[in-house]
């Protein structure tokens, strides 16, 4: 209870400080104004009276009324001297009303006014609202202005984390690692910071340290459930670090530790197949592909996996299988490539790209592809929706939309000047964010086009090797050197599996959810 009171006090401290400052400033100005005693002073005195009343409303936690009054006062030229204070308090009121985006605009205005007394406070608050909103632009703006030493100690963890992110994005991995390392244990940013630190270490080509960092993250989440996202992300990143170290066996084992009932398991399965191939465990890699190329993955954009499978078949001289896989690649990704090309050629407006994202998100939510009117294949939209920048921007857009609906639903607020202003700001943000998401999607589509073009070239090269191999095989067959048609596990009895508690089912073409990840390739290799 005492702790709770303390935090509540901390929360309202800036407001009290500000109100005291404004009160004392008004008192000083009143004293200064008194000798003038002119008619112009009467108007000014009335405004100051209104300001005083608005501040009183703020003190009494009547946020809406205070915000409305302060907004009007912030536009009065007579109160130019108090504008930074008014806007700062207005921002605080809007924060209390959960209108973070509109509040952020007030803090940006305060920073631009360059009033020494309020700039630092406004930067702090801007960092907090930008963090809540997940608005990268505002965050970068506030972080570029902030002085860590004067930033409140209780929010410094957020600042170190965001600074680390900004440095990482700028390619300053050493600086990023230092920033992330300063996020203390117990902070709500600790897990994310540890994860981001590991990533920066990987980027700095230090997989040994990175793997230790990821293990520390997993240890820190030891008591969390098996499917805890931070824990699983740590496990996956650890496996990736081992892969980067080219420790294939350890990486395979680490990938196998990712729980199956977590969304990251699909990535782990694909990456584990790479590790298996690099570790010359071809049969195991083909087992994984049986799952990855099942109908459960028909909406996953994984063209590389098909080529990888064909390469494994090349290794074991399975040319017919190779042909099937390459044909499958062309059958699936040929139309994808065509539609992406066509869309890029015919559409320039970011809103058109955003409309596709919106339709794709709806399909993802409802699972109904029919009547979705998607112009791009769903496989493409699902891939774009999974991209970090698009995901973050969509989350931000949702927060802004939620904020707008809060204003819309509040009839009293909507009819006020500040309500109208808030709607204008939010509509503008929504429009701009939609355009930004459209641009991001376009950039991803352009990358996809390049990638598919490249993969098609690789497919051609692989097909060439296949034909060479087939030629060689025919030559050997003519020389009567072909091999017997035995299955490689012929001698293993089914009872072996049953008696040891494993499951065994021959595959008949249908895929069962509980069998995904459990398929085993039992074919033989055909090389001579």
């Amino acid at each position, binding site marked *: 209870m005492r702790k709770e009171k303390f935090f509540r006090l901390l929360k309202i401290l800036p407001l009290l400080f500000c109100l005291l400052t404004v009160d004392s400033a008004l008192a000083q100005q009143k004293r200064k104004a008194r000798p003038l005693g002119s008619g112009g002073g009467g108007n000014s005195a009335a405004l100051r009276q209104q300001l005083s009343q608005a501040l009183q409303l703020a003190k009494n936690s009547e946020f809406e009324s205070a915000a409305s009054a302060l907004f009007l006062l912030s536009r009065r030229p007579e109160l130019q001297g108090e504008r930074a204070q008014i806007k700062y308090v207005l921002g605080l009121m809007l924060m209390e009303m959960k209108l973070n985006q509109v509040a952020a605009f007030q803090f940006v205005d305060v920073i631009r006014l360059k009033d020494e007394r309020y700039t630092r406070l406004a930067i702090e608050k801007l960092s907090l609202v930008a963090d809540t909103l997940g608005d990268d632009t505002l965050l970068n703006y506030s972080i570029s202005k902030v002085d860590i030493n004067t930033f409140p100690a209780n929010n410094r963890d957020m600042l170190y984390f965001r600074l680390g992110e900004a440095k990482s994005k700028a390619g300053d991995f050493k600086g990023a690692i230092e920033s992330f390392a300063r996020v203390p244990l117990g902070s709500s940013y600790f897990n994310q910071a540890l994860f981001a630190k590991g990533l920066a270490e990987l980027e700095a080509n230090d997989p040994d340290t990175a793997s230790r960092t990821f293990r520390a993250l997993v240890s820190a989440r030891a008591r969390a459930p098996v499917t805890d996202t931070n824990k699983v992300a740590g496990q996956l990143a650890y496996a990736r670090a081992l892969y980067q170290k080219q420790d294939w066996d350890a990486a395979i*084992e680490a990938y*196998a530790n990712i*729980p*199956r*009932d*977590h969304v990251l*398991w699909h990535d782990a399965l694909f990456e584990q197949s790479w590790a298996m191939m690099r570790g010359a465990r071809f*049969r*195991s890699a083909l*087992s994984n592909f049986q799952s990855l190329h*099942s*109908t*459960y993955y028909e*909406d996953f954009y994984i063209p590389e996996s098909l*080529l990888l499978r064909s*390469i494994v078949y*090349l*290794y074991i001289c399975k040319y017919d299988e190779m042909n099937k896989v390459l044909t499958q690649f062309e059958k699936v990704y040929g139309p994808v490539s065509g539609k992406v090309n066509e869309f890029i050629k015919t559409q320039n407006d970011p809103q058109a790209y955003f409309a596709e994202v919106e339709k794709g998100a709806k399909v*993802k939510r409802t*699972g109904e592809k029919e009547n979705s009117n998607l112009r791009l294949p769903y496989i493409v939209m*699902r891939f774009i929706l999974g991209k970090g920048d698009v995901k973050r921007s969509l989350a931000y857009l949702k927060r802004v939309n939620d904020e707008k609906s809060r204003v819309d639903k509040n009839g009293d607020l909507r009819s006020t000047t500040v309500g109208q202003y808030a709607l204008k700001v939010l509509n503008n943000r929504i429009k701009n964010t939609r355009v930004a998401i459209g641009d991001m999607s376009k950039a991803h589509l352009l990358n996809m086009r*390049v*990638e598919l073009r*490249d*993969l098609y070239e*690789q497919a051609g*090269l*692989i097909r060439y*090797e296949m034909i060479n191999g087939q030629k060689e095989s025919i030559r050997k067959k003519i020389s009567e050197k072909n*091999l*017997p*048609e*035995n299955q*490689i*596990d012929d*001698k*293993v009895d*089914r009872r072996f599996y049953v008696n040891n*508690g*494993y*499951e*065994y*089912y*021959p595959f*008949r*073409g*249908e*895929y*069962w*959810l*509980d*069998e*995904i*990840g*459990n398929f*085993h390739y039992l074919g*033989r*290799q055909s*090389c*001579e």
Partner: protein
Amino acid sequence: MRAFAIYIKGVFALLSFALALEVQTANAAEVVELPPEELARESVTPIFDKNESVKNRVIVTEGSWDVGVFGGLAMTEPIFNVSKAGLQVYYHVSESHAFGLLLAKNSNGISSNGQLLQKDQTIDFSRAPQADLQAFLDYNLKMFYGKMSVTKWVNFNTILMTTASVGTIKYTHKMYPAFAVGLANKFYVTPAWAFRFDLRLIANNAPVPFVKQKMRETDPVPEYSEFPERMHYSTNLEFGISYLF
């Protein structure tokens, strides 16, 4: 992508090298030990946007007809012959629902139990009316689709259903309305052919095969209308074979 391209080039270089050295890698008789850590023991399933328990079903019934023949036993029938044989035709509206028509012909005569009674008590049960034909409209709710594997190379799909029927049973002299509920299981040996087992509880108004002082051989022969009627329940086990098309 660049890494992938470099990797592919590396693969081809390695293959060429292997070919140049004429590496002998094959041994078709090789027995592969599946690593125990790769064998299936998981009790959880992966998460997809839409978690469907099965995809690419081998047995697709939606929009299909199936026809079959079956034989059955009325397990709780004490007097008359318990066996019957019949035909069934179903239309599968979806993977969950099917409607069909059942026609069955009961075997005539007295069961072995009835014959014992007849011998000991000199009761002539042939004087009593007995079930002759059955016709039911049957609804199937296909609850579970699954599969079974009993050998290393063989598995077959199964469908477990609940059934509900309404129809009529024709006795020697009269037709009675009848209702039935039950459980059925189909075992698909191929995507088209299946064995079907039905356990059905049939309820119908039926004549009681006794009329006082008119059942012994020396008694006067009763009219069918003299046999009293009451609600009759019988448990039936049916076994059949069906073809899906």
